[in-house]
């Protein structure tokens, strides 16, 4: 009883209200984009983007510019550069992304070690600080969610065909190149904006886990997208509540709830599956 009162007291704090709303919106956004990213085998791409964000932040700190201002253009440029490299180098995408993300992580850590005052903040960068989220951050995330829903809903046919087969999409009138770039830019912006709340190490979990759970539970595409998004938002809310109750770090709590949700989805999908599948 005392614990519940304590939780109620914590929840009524303005910072916690902002954190819950931020978690809900970031989780829903991650699940929404993740539902397409996972099918297009861009999971590792979002991970590489997350790690590169640390380099962007480091550059901002070194140059004395607000890292948040640097982060979005850096992430977009980085995403376009990596996309171009994957297309032109002829190397396997996962190998190339591995090179990119480990190198950018190494560069970022070296850069951060040069800035004495920032050595204590590395934990926040790696695991996020959703409790420190501001109303202005929330406004940006909400706008981004609206933009992502609008774009993906209006171009659903193009997105589905593109996910299915590039040539099929192109032959039936989908502007494949521009939709691919638009999606990658959107993913980069979402990763950049979510880094503050979620952290460099956990951002890919927000993109990948709810989408995989949604995939296990859905047989129709719109339902898959909606359930991925709902699972993303729902798990973030539950994880933050758990964090408030246990005083454990918020970002990892959310990811643990996402993982539990994935395990439940896996169990449900196996229970509902006929013995022999086609």
């Amino acid at each position: 009883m005392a614990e519940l009162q304590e939780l109620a007291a914590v929840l009524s704090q303005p910072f916690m209200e902002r954190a819950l709303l931020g978690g809900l919106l970031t989780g829903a956004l991650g699940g929404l984009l993740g539902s397409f990213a996972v099918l297009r085998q861009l999971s590792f791409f979002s991970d590489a983007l997350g790690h590169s964000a640390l380099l962007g932040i480091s550059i901002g700190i070194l140059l004395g510019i607000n890292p948040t201002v640097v982060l979005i253009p850096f992430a977009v440029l980085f995403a376009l550069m990596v996309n171009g490299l994957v297309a032109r180098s002829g190397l396997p995408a996962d190998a190339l992304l591995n090179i990119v993300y480990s190198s950018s992580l190494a560069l970022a850590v070296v850069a951060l070690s040069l800035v004495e005052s920032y050595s204590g903040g590395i934990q926040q960068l790696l695991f996020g600080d959703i409790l420190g989220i501001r109303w202005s951050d929330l406004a940006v995330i909400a706008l981004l969610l609206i933009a992502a829903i609008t774009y993906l809903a209006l171009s659903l046919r193009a997105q589905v065909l593109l996910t299915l087969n590039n040539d099929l999409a192109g032959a039936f009138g989908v502007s494949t190149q521009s939709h691919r770039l638009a999606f990658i830019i959107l993913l980069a912006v979402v990763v950049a904006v979510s880094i503050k709340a979620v952290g460099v190490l956990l951002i890919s979990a927000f993109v990948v886990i709810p989408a995989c759970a949604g995939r296990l539970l859905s047989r129709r595409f719109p339902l898959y997208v909606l359930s991925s998004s709902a699972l993303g938002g729902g798990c973030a809310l539950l994880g933050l509540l758990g964090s408030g109750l246990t005083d454990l770090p918020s970002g990892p709590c959310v990811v643990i709830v996402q993982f539990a949700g994935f395990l439940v989805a896996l169990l449900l999908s196996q229970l509902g599956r006929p013995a022999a599948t086609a």
Partner: protein
Amino acid sequence: MSGPPTHGEVLGGEPVLEVSELSVRRDGQLAVEKVSFQLARETDTALVGPNGAGKSTLVAAVLGLLPRQSGTVRILGQAMGPSGALPRSVRTQIAYVPQRLELQGRIPLTLAEFIGHGFDPPGPRLPWAGGRQRRQAVAQALERTGCGGLGERLLSELSGGQLKRALLAFCLVRPRQLLLLDEAQAGLDGPSGERFHQLLLDLRRQEGWTVLQVSHDLEMVRSSCDQVLCLNRRLRCSGRPDHALSPARLAELYGSNVVPYHHHHHHNHQRAGNRNEHHG
């Protein structure tokens, strides 16, 4: 080559597809060189040639999926832009059946949903627009391709033959004029291949499609196509199949290792290929 190549005769009216002096580079190599041909309305044309002859590259360039190095492509009288752009009214008249449909990550998409996306025109639109009309068109397309009971199946749950018929349903779900197939029967076993071929013939007649299909089945080409284009980077011969597929021309196209073989369904076929092997 025995005699000059004919580049397809248009029997009347404007050609549906007109390719002129088309050259295409792929992976740094000139894969298609100065190819010209025309497809007359409601005709069935086969594109044949050895592996690596540029057949798929030619189809991709005609669809606007690959940039052209030189030459022009006109579809229904409209010239294709340098980046493959066509007016939407023309683009909606084109259908395509790829060799393989990669199901990335086992996409959770039912067959009926997939066919529904074939009904919708390109461009931004609300996902729920035109619901009833779309459902009717999808149901008809599924029925006509023998996929009537499969609408709620996931694409990943379909067999190879069902998936190929589903692709035909995707083309069929709205009226179109030009259908391009890139080795559509590849990977199908004998009965599935026969069924697909018969379905394609029936639908072509009913819909009045003009067809360009890449094929290795020369017997099928002889028996059902109006025109054949023999490609090995350049157009080596073209015309009516009985004329263009003479032994001398085939030997020139494929090399001397063209071997007769018998399919397991006991039709005497001529197979062209790079392998010196006898079947049956």
